[in-house]
């Protein structure tokens, strides 16, 4: 389909572009971005025009950390529902974690995910392979085979690599394929039995605490191993002030370290647990105001490169239970964008910085051709209505899951149109 988006505010952080312009898409690619674009009538009769005045036109959003639950736990989410949730939230590409059943630790599973995505998916699906076979934490999976099958990175996300030797070897071996190693930083001995952040609120609720050091010890270890191996380390779901400090220091020494956080870590604190709401049970746990402020600062100064959702769907079977028994996880695909925009409205990030965190930077970390509006790029585009105000209603979600702590929250800003490869994957446009 050929079309032109007229008079939107085009924000492409990769090209330092931020002004009112028209965007022309031909044959699924970005053909032109220019103010007051004239299109000849001759060969291009079927060009549709959309007026997106007052709207933002940005490179398609990239979520580098989601759980699609397929194969194995399709009752929670599957590739069809998860990608529908993605495009409804403005995402055109999602990187799915390997902790499925079976684990994505070999080409066969990667192929299966990509095949299902081609059949049922409505956005790009980027499988992430496992660091260790079966996530056993002991034996390296075949990174080369995974890479050739289409895996964009490796991680044992959901559990940490406790064995430091294995983490060292993973960072080294991944260098052959220039793959980034995503670290779920958690010392299982320090977090053992913990249900929420350790502090005043865990003392009040009587829920066993997880100290910030459970994360920070492993962030420090992985930074040292990245330094040793010259491997590419990406720290997933940063939740503490100490982790921000460690990553900032590593970057100042020029190490190849990147990091992401998730909206709940810069929006909520552990006080949300006072009512024992299992929708706020997540790993790493919600921390304190001090940590939230440090994450804001880390986003602002570039210490934290990306915002990912860690979309972790669970059914009521896992969540409508006693807090001790509830599964960890929060869904994020359909609530992330307005929570990121809230950082803009609060003056913490500029619009361009915000879009970089959810498009340009994650695409760059994963080595994708996405996250840009450069001429000739595949037309993955998100149009955002930055003015709309609404109350978030989880019952309208495309995701199968409802484990969202933001239900009923007043939001400001929403995806209006999600375009994947020049095709409209999702639209809230009325005309």
């Amino acid at each position, binding site marked *: 389909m050929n079309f032109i988006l007229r008079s939107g505010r085009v924000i492409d952080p990769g090209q330092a572009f931020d002004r009112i312009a028209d965007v022309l898409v031909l044959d699924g690619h970005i053909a032109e971005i220019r103010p007051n674009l004239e299109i000849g009538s001759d060969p291009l009769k079927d060009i549709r025009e959309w007026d997106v005045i007052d709207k933002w036109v940005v490179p398609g959003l990239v979520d580098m950390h989601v759980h699609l639950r397929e194969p194995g736990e399709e009752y929670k989410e599957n590739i069809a529902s998860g990608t529908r949730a993605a495009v409804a939230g403005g995402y055109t590409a999602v990187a799915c974690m390997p902790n499925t059943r079976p684990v994505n630790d070999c080409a066969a599973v990667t192929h299966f995910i990509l095949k299902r995505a081609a059949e049922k998916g409505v956005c790009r699906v980027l499988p992430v392979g496992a660091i260790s076979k079966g996530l056993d934490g002991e034996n390296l999976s075949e990174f080369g085979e995974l890479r050739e099958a289409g895996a964009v990175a490796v991680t044992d996300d959901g559990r940490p690599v406790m064995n430091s030797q294995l983490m060292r070897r993973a960072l080294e071996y991944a260098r052959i394929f220039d793959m980034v190693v995503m670290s779920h930083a958690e010392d299982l001995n320090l977090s053992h039995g913990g249900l929420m952040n350790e502090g005043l609120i865990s003392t009040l609720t009587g*829920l066993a*605490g997880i100290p910030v050091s459970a994360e920070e010890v492993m962030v420090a270890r992985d930074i040292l191993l990245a330094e040793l191996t010259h491997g590419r380390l990406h720290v997933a779901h940063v939740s503490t002030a100490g982790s921000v400090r460690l990553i900032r220091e590593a970057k100042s020494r020029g190490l190849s370290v990147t990091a992401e956080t998730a909206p709940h870590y810069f929006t909520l604190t552990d006080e949300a647990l006072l009512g024992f709401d299992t929708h706020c049970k997540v790993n790493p746990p919600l921390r304190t105001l001090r940590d939230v402020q440090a994450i804001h600062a880390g986003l602002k100064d570039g210490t934290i490169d990306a915002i990912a959702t860690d979309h972790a769907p669970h059914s009521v079977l896992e969540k409508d239970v*006693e*807090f001790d028994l509830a599964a960890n996880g929060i869904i994020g695909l359909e609530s992330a964008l307005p929570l990121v925009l809230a950082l803009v409205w609060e003056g913490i990030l500029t619009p361009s910085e915000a879009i970089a965190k959810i498009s340009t930077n994650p695409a760059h970390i994963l080595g994708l051709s996405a996250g840009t509006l450069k001429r000739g790029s595949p037309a993955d585009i998100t149009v955002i209505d930055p003015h709309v105000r609404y109350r978030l209603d989880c019952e309208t979600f495309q995701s199968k899951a409802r484990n969202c702590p933001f239900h009923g929250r007043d939001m400001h800003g929403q995806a209006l149109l999600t375009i994947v490869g020049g095709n409209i994957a999702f639209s809230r446009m009325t005309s």
Partner: protein
Amino acid sequence: MQFARKDLLGIRELSAGEIEYILNTATAFKEINRRPIKKVPTLRGKTVVHLFYEPSTRTRTSFDIAAKRLSADTFSIATATSSMVKGETFLDTLKNLEAMQADVFVIRHSASGAPQRLAGRTSAAVINAGDGMHEHPSQALLDMLTIRDHRGELAGLTVAIIGDIAHSRVARSNIWGLNKMGAQVVCCGPPTLIPADLEKMGVTVSYRLEEVIPHADVLMVLRLQRERQEQMLLPSLREYAIYYGIDTEKLKKARGDVLIMHPGPINRGVEISPEVADGPHSVILEQVTNGVAVRMALLYLLVQKERPSAELVI
């Protein structure tokens, strides 16, 4: 004063006035327990269900005796948490019992927050009989009643809570209650058993028992679970007893009128020596006696709110 709550989930949400009202009501009920015929018709026709998802003898018996002395019909359901694979079992059980028109659920659960979760899903009254490490409100109320019996009032007293504060719902409920009633609370135990940011609850923390004992009006001794040793929280029960166990030698530094309390069950020779547990300062069995009166008061107050015209028939 009218007690308007549907449930009793914790001391945290109570006002000093409400605590005082419960203690006064309990005091009125104490007399029934001394009668030759210990039964009044106050809750006749009401159904009280004890749902115990964690082992308990004392608390369950105490609630059961309290309900029966008020002429309620009582049923007990006890299940080990380990057999509960999914939590719906608990909710389903509750919904089934509610469908049989139960009026009050007395809930003991190993998971912090379990009674709160269920209270929002039933129109029956819920009494928290101890949830995880969170709260044990009826225990704190009977403790406060026992102290008040001896000292007249709680305000101005110094109460030392000694031992495994981190894992203790009794400690948390007492800290809330004693603070609200104007007492000073000192928590004393090894740092491994003091929870994070405890001072922010408005208590003083000490790691050395000898600094605490001389100033305390009350020594509230907590049970030490034997598994704390395996969790690397303590080197041995032996060393714990040396530094934190209350014995006659350590008690020599205490005030002459000090009260020794323990929520039970006692590990004799670990947190408290037999001589102290059975000695002249001990009010441990008075706590148990007061437990019945406090639980009668709670059952009465929570059921009575449905029948505002009901008179306190004693």
